């Protein structure tokens, strides 16, 4: 699959944003009103900015961005529509939580329910994002039980890394945040390794014989057009697939760098948490690019691949 850069930016930025928002909801749930208005406002601003940048960038790849509002209508059948609805509904919840948690609005008894709502809406939105991909039977590498968990884990891990950086800025860096980041990075590494092993060892579900109905010994003889068409450009992307091994190592290296930065921020100085956030986000971007590049759409069976 051709990785649309706007979609990579969207899923990684908004993933981190929702991860951060979920964790802030959890912070509010545990500690009540924030100890510093500046910290609360800044961290909420960062979360919503990441989410908004992501959502805006996702409209860049649309043919008609001005019609994007229509995407909220088909939540009964479409995961993309559900994601849009969840994303829009999260805004008022997040704003309300931000106001009471920061203390700008004095209503402490609302912190807990709104914190839970933030946590729930963030999880729901990222779940819907993952489901858009996981529900496509046409792409075996996506139509996999680990797709959604990986999206959720990356969102939380990158969100936790950003939280550590923002907390450092306000002198609120805590050992607990390091432990949380380390646990989440470990979860990401385990899930992603399991996912890669699963797609590497998966038995192809369809062959060119199934696609054409012409049996077991079919070979492409003539393509239907002189130049590549939309189908090949969109579904037949192979640039990064050739470098998949290198890119996988790069993801793991970035995750390892994030772990080292997390340990250094604990043992040396909290300012390493910025390196932690940068490394975690880098890992997420490369991972998302690979997620697209390694996906083989079954339509390629009509264009010469043997099995998918």
């Amino acid at each position, binding site marked *: *699959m051709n990785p649309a850069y706007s979609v990579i930016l969207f899923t990684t930025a908004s993933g981190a944003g929702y991860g951060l928002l979920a964790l802030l909801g959890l912070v509010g749930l545990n500690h009540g009103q924030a100890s510093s208005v500046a910290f609360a406002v800044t961290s909420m601003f960062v979360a919503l900015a990441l989410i908004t940048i992501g959502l805006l960038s996702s409209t860049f*790849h*649309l*043919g*008609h*961005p001005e*019609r*994007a509002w*229509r*995407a*909220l*209508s*088909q939540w*009964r*059948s*479409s*995961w*993309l*529509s559900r994601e*849009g609805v969840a994303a829009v509904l999260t805004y008022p919840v997040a704003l309300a939580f931000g106001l009471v948690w920061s203390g700008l609005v004095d209503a402490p008894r609302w912190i807990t329910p709104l914190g839970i709502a933030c946590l729930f809406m963030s999880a729901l939105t990222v779940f819907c994002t993952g489901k*858009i991909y996981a*529900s*496509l*039977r*046409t*792409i075996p590498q996506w139509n996999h039980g680990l797709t959604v968990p990986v999206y959720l884990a990356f969102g939380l891990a990158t969100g936790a890394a950003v939280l550590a950086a923002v907390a450092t800025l306000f002198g609120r860096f805590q050992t607990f945040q390091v432990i949380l980041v380390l646990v989440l990075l470990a979860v990401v590494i385990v899930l992603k390794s399991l996912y890669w092993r699963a797609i590497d060892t998966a038995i192809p*579900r*369809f062959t*060119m014989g*199934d*696609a*054409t*109905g*012409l*049996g*077991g*010994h*079919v*070979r*492409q*003889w*003539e*393509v*239907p*057009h*002189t*130049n*590549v*068409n*939309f*189908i090949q450009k*969109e*579904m037949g992307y192979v640039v990064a697939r050739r470098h998949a091994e290198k890119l996988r190592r790069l993801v793991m290296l970035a995750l390892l760098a994030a772990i080292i930065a997390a340990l250094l921020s604990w043992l040396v100085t909290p300012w390493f948490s910025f390196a932690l956030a940068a490394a975690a986000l880098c890992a997420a971007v490369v991972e998302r690019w690979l997620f697209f590049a390694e996906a083989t*759409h*079954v*339509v390629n069976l*009509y264009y010469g691949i043997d099995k998918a």
Partner: protein
Amino acid sequence: MTSLPGTTQKKLGLVIDLDVCVGCQACATSCKEWNTQGVSAPLSDAKPRSAEPMGTWLNRIHGYEVHDEGREDARIVHFPRSCLHCETPACVTVCPTGASYKRAEDGIVLVNPETCIGCKLCSWACPYGAREYDAPTGVMKKCTLCVDRIYNENFVEEDRVPACVKACPTGARSFGDLGDANSAVSQLVRERGGYDLMPDMGYKPTNKYLPPRARRDTAVVEALPKSDGSAMEKLFAWADKLMSAPKASARANESDLSDRLEG
């Protein structure tokens, strides 16, 4: 609405005979010609006269080489590929705007170009590559089963078929109601063992493909005339030998020449 209708009154679709198709591209070009000015208009072309032309087409004709079990020679099968107007198409249900829909009356799957946002997700959901994104207009295009021909009362009855069916010079494409067991297309499917593409995908395609018929054994020449030892036959054998000899020496000369050229 992108939720699918439970049942459709008709299941209009195509039956494509792979035994008869000669890969002439008439269906593809007539489709392009009709639909670039019909309800799907335009089917854009980008840089059509350059070295890298790109264009939106709703019908693509592949060629495959098929090796039958136990035979050394292959056969070529021409394979038209377009929307199959599936009964449970995920291209419709994934659409976030409702622009993609399946009609309850005849099962035709359509895109409303006024509400499509061009997110391309439907093209990802289609296993058959039936949907092509038209970049200049920013919306998705697909086969309409020539919905603007088949009900068009300005046409005489025999012309109320999709442009591809009308254009096919070998009669490889048939159009009709596959939901009606007594229709000509349903009978054709029964008689010839019409099949679905990738049935395990679960989309329940309406269009059916008729497999190439079993081949006659034309590779083996059965009745070589036996020698009768006549004088005439000996004469021909002598002439054959005479004419074969210079050929061998000519070939030797050619290789000499090529040696010289290479040297």
